[in-house]
Protein backbone atom coordinates (compact mmCIF):
# COMPACT_ATOMS: atom_id res chain seq x y z
CA UNK A 1 0.00 0.00 0.00
CA UNK A 2 2.72 2.36 1.05
CA UNK A 3 4.70 1.40 -2.03
CA UNK A 4 1.69 2.00 -4.24
CA UNK A 5 1.27 5.44 -2.68
CA UNK A 6 4.92 6.27 -3.31
CA UNK A 7 4.58 5.15 -6.90
CA UNK A 8 1.57 7.44 -7.36
CA UNK A 9 3.52 10.37 -5.97
CA UNK A 10 6.43 9.56 -8.25
CA UNK A 11 4.13 9.41 -11.28
CA UNK A 12 2.58 12.76 -10.44
CA UNK A 13 6.01 14.34 -9.95
CA UNK A 14 7.06 13.08 -13.36
CA UNK A 15 3.83 14.42 -14.85
CA UNK A 16 4.36 17.83 -13.31
CA UNK A 17 7.97 17.91 -14.51
CA UNK A 18 6.91 16.99 -18.00
CA UNK A 19 4.31 19.74 -17.97
CA UNK A 20 6.85 22.28 -16.72
CA UNK A 21 9.29 21.25 -19.40
CA UNK A 22 6.75 21.50 -22.21
CA UNK A 23 7.41 24.55 -24.35
CA UNK A 24 4.79 27.21 -23.88
CA UNK A 25 4.71 28.09 -27.54
CA UNK A 26 4.78 25.80 -30.53
CA UNK A 27 7.41 26.42 -33.21
CA UNK A 28 4.86 28.05 -35.53
CA UNK A 29 2.83 29.82 -32.83
CA UNK A 30 3.22 33.32 -34.22
CA UNK A 31 -0.40 34.26 -33.65
CA UNK A 32 -0.35 36.88 -30.94
CA UNK A 33 0.19 40.56 -30.19
CA UNK A 34 3.79 41.71 -30.60
CA UNK A 35 5.65 44.96 -30.22
CA UNK A 36 8.94 45.89 -31.85
CA UNK A 37 12.07 46.16 -29.73
CA UNK A 38 13.02 49.57 -31.18
CA UNK A 39 13.50 51.86 -28.17
CA UNK A 40 12.50 49.08 -25.77
CA UNK A 41 14.51 49.02 -22.54
CA UNK A 42 15.62 45.54 -21.54
CA UNK A 43 14.84 43.77 -24.80
CA UNK A 44 16.73 40.55 -25.52
CA UNK A 45 17.34 41.50 -29.15
CA UNK A 46 18.26 44.65 -31.04
CA UNK A 47 16.91 45.58 -34.43
CA UNK A 48 19.46 45.69 -37.19
CA UNK A 49 19.46 49.23 -38.59
CA UNK A 50 18.20 50.08 -42.04
CA UNK A 51 21.15 50.81 -44.34
CA UNK A 52 22.52 54.31 -44.04
CA UNK A 53 24.44 54.22 -47.31
CA UNK A 54 22.32 52.25 -49.75
CA UNK A 55 23.50 51.97 -53.33
CA UNK A 56 20.90 54.13 -55.03
CA UNK A 57 20.25 54.21 -58.73
CA UNK A 58 20.12 57.70 -60.20
CA UNK A 59 16.32 57.53 -60.14
CA UNK A 60 16.38 56.23 -56.58
CA UNK A 61 18.69 58.97 -55.32
CA UNK A 62 16.44 61.65 -56.80
CA UNK A 63 13.33 60.02 -55.31
CA UNK A 64 15.01 59.71 -51.92
CA UNK A 65 16.06 63.36 -51.92
CA UNK A 66 12.58 64.42 -52.94
CA UNK A 67 11.03 62.41 -50.12
CA UNK A 68 13.26 64.27 -47.68
CA UNK A 69 12.48 67.68 -49.14
CA UNK A 70 9.51 69.92 -48.50
CA UNK A 71 8.05 69.31 -51.95
CA UNK A 72 7.75 65.55 -51.62
CA UNK A 73 4.83 63.96 -53.39
CA UNK A 74 4.35 61.56 -50.51
CA UNK A 75 1.64 62.33 -47.97
CA UNK A 76 2.67 61.96 -44.35
CA UNK A 77 -0.41 59.88 -43.64
CA UNK A 78 0.14 57.43 -46.48
CA UNK A 79 0.62 53.82 -45.37
CA UNK A 80 3.96 52.06 -45.34
CA UNK A 81 5.26 49.18 -47.41
CA UNK A 82 5.42 45.77 -45.69
CA UNK A 83 9.05 46.55 -44.79
CA UNK A 84 8.06 49.67 -42.88
CA UNK A 85 5.04 47.87 -41.38
CA UNK A 86 7.48 45.31 -39.94
CA UNK A 87 10.12 47.89 -39.02
CA UNK A 88 10.20 46.77 -35.39
CA UNK A 89 9.61 50.08 -33.64
CA UNK A 90 8.39 49.88 -30.06
CA UNK A 91 5.77 52.57 -30.43
CA UNK A 92 2.94 50.64 -32.06
CA UNK A 93 2.18 46.91 -31.67
CA UNK A 94 1.40 44.46 -34.42
CA UNK A 95 -1.09 41.62 -34.21
CA UNK A 96 -0.83 38.40 -36.25
CA UNK A 97 -3.97 36.34 -36.78
CA UNK A 98 -4.76 33.13 -38.64
CA UNK A 99 -7.52 32.96 -41.22
CA UNK A 100 -8.60 29.97 -43.29
CA UNK A 101 -6.74 31.00 -46.44
CA UNK A 102 -4.33 33.57 -45.11
CA UNK A 103 -2.52 35.23 -42.27
CA UNK A 104 -3.72 38.69 -41.33
CA UNK A 105 -1.45 41.23 -39.71
CA UNK A 106 -2.56 44.45 -38.09
CA UNK A 107 -0.31 47.36 -37.18
CA UNK A 108 -1.67 49.90 -34.76
CA UNK A 109 -0.25 52.82 -36.74
CA UNK A 110 -2.05 51.83 -39.93
CA UNK A 111 -5.67 51.32 -40.85
CA UNK A 112 -5.07 48.75 -43.62
CA UNK A 113 -4.24 45.20 -42.58
CA UNK A 114 -1.74 42.98 -44.36
CA UNK A 115 -3.39 39.95 -45.94
CA UNK A 116 -0.88 37.23 -46.66
CA UNK A 117 -2.28 34.29 -48.60
CA UNK A 118 -1.18 30.87 -47.39
CA UNK A 119 -3.43 28.70 -49.57
CA UNK A 120 -0.87 28.09 -52.28
CA UNK A 121 -2.04 30.73 -54.73
CA UNK A 122 0.52 32.65 -56.75
CA UNK A 123 0.86 36.38 -57.34
CA UNK A 124 -1.34 37.60 -60.19
CA UNK A 125 0.52 38.25 -63.46
CA UNK A 126 2.42 41.54 -63.34
CA UNK A 127 0.06 43.22 -65.82
CA UNK A 128 -3.03 42.15 -63.86
CA UNK A 129 -1.93 43.08 -60.38
CA UNK A 130 -3.58 46.03 -58.66
CA UNK A 131 -0.77 48.20 -57.26
CA UNK A 132 -1.26 49.01 -53.59
CA UNK A 133 0.71 50.36 -50.63
CA UNK A 134 1.09 46.95 -49.01
CA UNK A 135 1.24 44.96 -52.22
CA UNK A 136 0.18 41.38 -52.84
CA UNK A 137 1.56 38.87 -50.32
CA UNK A 138 1.81 35.09 -50.44
CA UNK A 139 3.52 32.85 -47.90
CA UNK A 140 4.49 29.30 -47.11
CA UNK A 141 6.26 27.54 -44.27
CA UNK A 142 9.81 26.26 -44.72
CA UNK A 143 10.25 24.19 -41.58
CA UNK A 144 9.35 26.61 -38.83
CA UNK A 145 10.12 29.71 -40.88
CA UNK A 146 7.28 31.58 -42.53
CA UNK A 147 8.47 32.92 -45.87
CA UNK A 148 6.45 35.85 -47.20
CA UNK A 149 6.84 37.19 -50.72
CA UNK A 150 5.30 40.55 -51.61
CA UNK A 151 5.07 42.40 -54.93
CA UNK A 152 2.54 44.75 -56.53
CA UNK A 153 3.38 48.04 -54.86
CA UNK A 154 2.17 51.45 -55.95
CA UNK A 155 5.38 53.36 -55.22
CA UNK A 156 3.48 55.87 -53.09
CA UNK A 157 4.13 54.50 -49.62
CA UNK A 158 6.05 56.34 -46.98
CA UNK A 159 9.78 55.61 -46.94
CA UNK A 160 10.73 52.27 -45.43
CA UNK A 161 12.65 54.02 -42.66
CA UNK A 162 10.03 56.52 -41.65
CA UNK A 163 9.30 60.13 -42.27
CA UNK A 164 8.89 62.04 -45.44
CA UNK A 165 9.53 65.78 -45.60
CA UNK A 166 11.31 67.47 -42.77
CA UNK A 167 12.84 64.26 -41.57
CA UNK A 168 16.41 64.87 -42.53
CA UNK A 169 16.70 68.17 -40.74
CA UNK A 170 14.55 67.15 -37.79
CA UNK A 171 17.47 65.94 -35.75
CA UNK A 172 15.65 62.67 -35.24
CA UNK A 173 16.65 61.03 -38.49
CA UNK A 174 19.66 61.97 -40.53
CA UNK A 175 19.73 58.95 -42.82
CA UNK A 176 18.61 59.05 -46.45
CA UNK A 177 14.96 58.25 -47.05
CA UNK A 178 14.63 54.64 -48.18
CA UNK A 179 11.91 55.06 -50.75
CA UNK A 180 10.22 52.26 -52.67
CA UNK A 181 8.96 52.19 -56.24
CA UNK A 182 6.39 50.05 -58.02
CA UNK A 183 9.19 47.50 -58.55
CA UNK A 184 9.59 46.81 -54.83
CA UNK A 185 9.92 43.13 -53.97
CA UNK A 186 10.00 42.20 -50.29
CA UNK A 187 10.86 38.74 -48.99
CA UNK A 188 10.48 38.09 -45.28
CA UNK A 189 11.62 35.12 -43.24
CA UNK A 190 9.75 35.08 -39.95
CA UNK A 191 10.58 32.71 -37.11
CA UNK A 192 10.23 32.48 -33.36
CA UNK A 193 13.31 32.92 -31.21
CA UNK A 194 14.03 32.85 -27.45
CA UNK A 195 11.54 30.02 -26.79
CA UNK A 196 8.86 31.82 -28.75
CA UNK A 197 8.93 34.98 -26.67
CA UNK A 198 10.41 36.97 -29.54
CA UNK A 199 9.75 37.00 -33.26
CA UNK A 200 12.46 37.64 -35.82
CA UNK A 201 11.69 39.02 -39.26
CA UNK A 202 14.59 38.95 -41.73
CA UNK A 203 13.41 41.47 -44.32
CA UNK A 204 14.99 41.49 -47.77
CA UNK A 205 14.27 44.57 -49.86
CA UNK A 206 14.89 44.55 -53.59
CA UNK A 207 13.85 47.40 -55.83
CA UNK A 208 15.95 47.69 -59.00
CA UNK A 209 14.40 51.07 -59.83
CA UNK A 210 15.68 52.54 -56.55
CA UNK A 211 18.60 50.38 -55.38
CA UNK A 212 21.50 48.89 -57.32
CA UNK A 213 21.76 46.24 -54.64
CA UNK A 214 19.13 44.88 -52.30
CA UNK A 215 19.56 44.65 -48.55
CA UNK A 216 18.44 42.43 -45.69
CA UNK A 217 17.89 43.51 -42.11
CA UNK A 218 16.54 41.63 -39.12
CA UNK A 219 13.85 43.24 -36.99
CA UNK A 220 12.59 41.84 -33.69
CA UNK A 221 9.31 41.89 -31.79
CA UNK A 222 8.52 40.84 -28.23
CA UNK A 223 5.42 38.70 -27.59
CA UNK A 224 3.08 40.91 -25.55
CA UNK A 225 -0.43 39.44 -25.37
CA UNK A 226 -1.39 41.77 -22.52
CA UNK A 227 -1.04 44.91 -24.66
CA UNK A 228 -4.20 46.54 -25.89
CA UNK A 229 -4.45 47.52 -29.50
CA UNK A 230 -5.66 51.08 -29.90
CA UNK A 231 -7.40 52.85 -32.72
CA UNK A 232 -5.13 55.09 -34.71
CA UNK A 233 -6.23 57.66 -37.27
CA UNK A 234 -3.48 59.71 -38.85
CA UNK A 235 -5.70 62.35 -40.44
CA UNK A 236 -7.53 63.60 -37.40
CA UNK A 237 -6.48 66.30 -34.93
CA UNK A 238 -3.33 67.41 -36.73
CA UNK A 239 -3.16 70.92 -35.22
CA UNK A 240 -1.43 73.00 -37.88
CA UNK A 241 -2.38 76.00 -35.71
CA UNK A 242 0.19 74.79 -33.22
CA UNK A 243 2.70 73.72 -35.85
CA UNK A 244 1.76 70.21 -34.87
CA UNK A 245 2.25 68.69 -38.28
CA UNK A 246 4.57 69.18 -41.19
CA UNK A 247 2.53 67.64 -43.89
CA UNK A 248 3.88 69.84 -46.63
CA UNK A 249 2.37 67.75 -49.38
CA UNK A 250 -1.10 68.16 -47.93
CA UNK A 251 -0.94 71.93 -47.59
Amino acid at each position, binding site marked *: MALAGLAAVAVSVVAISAEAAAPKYGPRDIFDTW*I*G*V*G*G*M*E*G*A*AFKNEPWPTHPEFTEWGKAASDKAASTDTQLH*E*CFPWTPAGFM*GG*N*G*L*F*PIQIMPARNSIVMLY*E*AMVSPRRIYTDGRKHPPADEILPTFLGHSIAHWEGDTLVIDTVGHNGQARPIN*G*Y*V*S*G*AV*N*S*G*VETNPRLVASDQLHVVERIRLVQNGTYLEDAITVEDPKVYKKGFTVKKYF*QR*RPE*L*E*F*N*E*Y*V*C*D*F*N*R*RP*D*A*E*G*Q*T*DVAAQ
Partner: protein
Amino acid sequence: MKAYLIAAAVALVAAPAAAHHSFAMFDLTKDVAVSGTIKEVQFTNPHVWFQVMAPDGTGKDVEWSIEAGAPGMLLRTGWKPNTVKAGDKVSLVMHPAKSGKPTGSLVTMKVPDGRTLGPGGAPKAE
Protein backbone atom coordinates in the same frame (compact mmCIF):
# COMPACT_ATOMS: atom_id res chain seq x y z
CA MET B 1 8.47 85.16 -24.16
CA LYS B 2 11.83 84.67 -22.55
CA ALA B 3 10.41 85.91 -19.26
CA TYR B 4 8.34 82.81 -18.74
CA LEU B 5 10.96 80.40 -19.86
CA ILE B 6 11.91 79.22 -16.42
CA ALA B 7 14.86 77.23 -17.59
CA ALA B 8 16.45 76.53 -20.91
CA ALA B 9 19.18 74.00 -21.25
CA VAL B 10 20.87 72.63 -24.30
CA ALA B 11 20.63 68.89 -24.25
CA LEU B 12 20.71 66.18 -26.85
CA VAL B 13 17.61 64.40 -25.72
CA ALA B 14 16.33 61.62 -27.92
CA ALA B 15 12.93 62.47 -29.32
CA PRO B 16 10.43 59.68 -29.82
CA ALA B 17 12.69 57.85 -32.21
CA ALA B 18 10.22 56.59 -34.72
CA ALA B 19 7.26 58.75 -33.82
CA HIS B 20 4.64 59.04 -36.43
CA HIS B 21 5.25 62.59 -37.53
CA SER B 22 8.35 64.55 -38.05
CA PHE B 23 9.18 66.85 -35.18
CA ALA B 24 11.17 69.16 -37.44
CA MET B 25 9.34 72.25 -36.20
CA PHE B 26 10.65 71.77 -32.67
CA ASP B 27 14.15 72.55 -31.51
CA LEU B 28 15.17 69.17 -30.20
CA THR B 29 18.42 70.56 -28.82
CA LYS B 30 16.62 72.71 -26.26
CA ASP B 31 14.76 71.76 -23.11
CA VAL B 32 12.48 74.40 -21.66
CA ALA B 33 10.56 74.10 -18.38
CA VAL B 34 7.04 75.50 -17.99
CA SER B 35 4.72 75.40 -14.98
CA GLY B 36 1.07 76.16 -15.37
CA THR B 37 -2.52 75.03 -15.29
CA ILE B 38 -4.08 72.60 -17.72
CA LYS B 39 -6.76 74.31 -19.79
CA GLU B 40 -7.64 71.38 -22.01
CA VAL B 41 -6.45 67.86 -22.80
CA GLN B 42 -6.92 66.57 -26.34
CA PHE B 43 -6.30 62.85 -25.92
CA THR B 44 -6.70 62.34 -29.64
CA ASN B 45 -5.13 60.82 -32.69
CA PRO B 46 -2.72 61.18 -34.23
CA HIS B 47 -1.05 62.89 -31.27
CA VAL B 48 -2.09 63.98 -27.80
CA TRP B 49 -2.09 67.72 -27.01
CA PHE B 50 -2.07 69.55 -23.70
CA GLN B 51 -3.19 73.20 -23.58
CA VAL B 52 -1.40 74.78 -20.63
CA MET B 53 -1.90 78.31 -19.25
CA ALA B 54 1.34 79.65 -17.82
CA PRO B 55 2.25 83.13 -16.57
CA ASP B 56 4.51 85.08 -18.89
CA GLY B 57 6.17 87.11 -16.13
CA THR B 58 4.24 90.30 -16.86
CA GLY B 59 1.02 89.34 -15.13
CA LYS B 60 -0.55 87.72 -18.16
CA ASP B 61 -1.09 84.08 -18.98
CA VAL B 62 0.05 82.55 -22.22
CA GLU B 63 -1.60 79.45 -23.66
CA TRP B 64 0.95 76.79 -24.56
CA SER B 65 0.16 73.94 -26.95
CA ILE B 66 2.23 70.92 -25.96
CA GLU B 67 2.38 67.91 -28.27
CA ALA B 68 2.99 64.35 -27.09
CA GLY B 69 2.90 60.99 -28.86
CA ALA B 70 -0.02 58.92 -30.13
CA PRO B 71 -2.70 57.97 -27.58
CA GLY B 72 -1.70 54.29 -27.71
CA MET B 73 1.91 55.19 -26.99
CA LEU B 74 0.89 57.16 -23.90
CA LEU B 75 -1.49 54.43 -22.69
CA ARG B 76 1.36 51.88 -22.86
CA THR B 77 3.71 54.10 -20.85
CA GLY B 78 1.70 54.99 -17.77
CA TRP B 79 -0.84 57.53 -18.98
CA LYS B 80 -4.61 57.32 -18.89
CA PRO B 81 -6.92 59.75 -20.68
CA ASN B 82 -7.73 61.33 -17.30
CA THR B 83 -4.23 61.42 -15.80
CA VAL B 84 -4.35 65.20 -16.11
CA LYS B 85 -7.54 67.22 -16.36
CA ALA B 86 -8.52 70.84 -16.87
CA GLY B 87 -7.60 72.82 -13.79
CA ASP B 88 -4.69 70.59 -12.76
CA LYS B 89 -1.36 72.24 -11.95
CA VAL B 90 1.51 70.68 -13.85
CA SER B 91 5.15 71.34 -14.48
CA LEU B 92 6.66 70.10 -17.69
CA VAL B 93 9.76 70.12 -19.82
CA MET B 94 9.44 70.51 -23.58
CA HIS B 95 11.35 71.12 -26.76
CA PRO B 96 10.16 74.58 -27.91
CA ALA B 97 9.04 75.48 -31.43
CA LYS B 98 11.80 76.90 -33.58
CA SER B 99 9.38 79.64 -34.64
CA GLY B 100 9.12 81.06 -31.12
CA LYS B 101 5.37 80.37 -30.96
CA PRO B 102 4.12 79.09 -27.58
CA THR B 103 4.14 75.47 -28.61
CA GLY B 104 6.45 72.58 -27.93
CA SER B 105 6.93 68.84 -27.89
CA LEU B 106 6.64 67.21 -24.49
CA VAL B 107 9.74 65.72 -22.86
CA THR B 108 8.39 65.06 -19.35
CA MET B 109 5.42 66.17 -17.28
CA LYS B 110 5.03 65.98 -13.51
CA VAL B 111 1.39 64.98 -13.11
CA PRO B 112 -0.90 65.48 -10.06
CA ASP B 113 -0.36 61.95 -8.70
CA GLY B 114 3.35 62.71 -8.32
CA ARG B 115 4.71 60.70 -11.23
CA THR B 116 6.87 62.15 -13.95
CA LEU B 117 5.70 60.80 -17.29
CA GLY B 118 7.19 60.99 -20.76
CA PRO B 119 5.72 61.84 -24.15
CA GLY B 120 4.86 58.24 -25.01
CA GLY B 121 7.39 55.76 -26.31
CA ALA B 122 8.21 52.10 -26.25
CA PRO B 123 7.10 50.09 -23.22
CA LYS B 124 9.81 48.32 -21.25
CA ALA B 125 10.55 44.68 -22.04
CA GLU B 126 8.66 42.09 -20.03
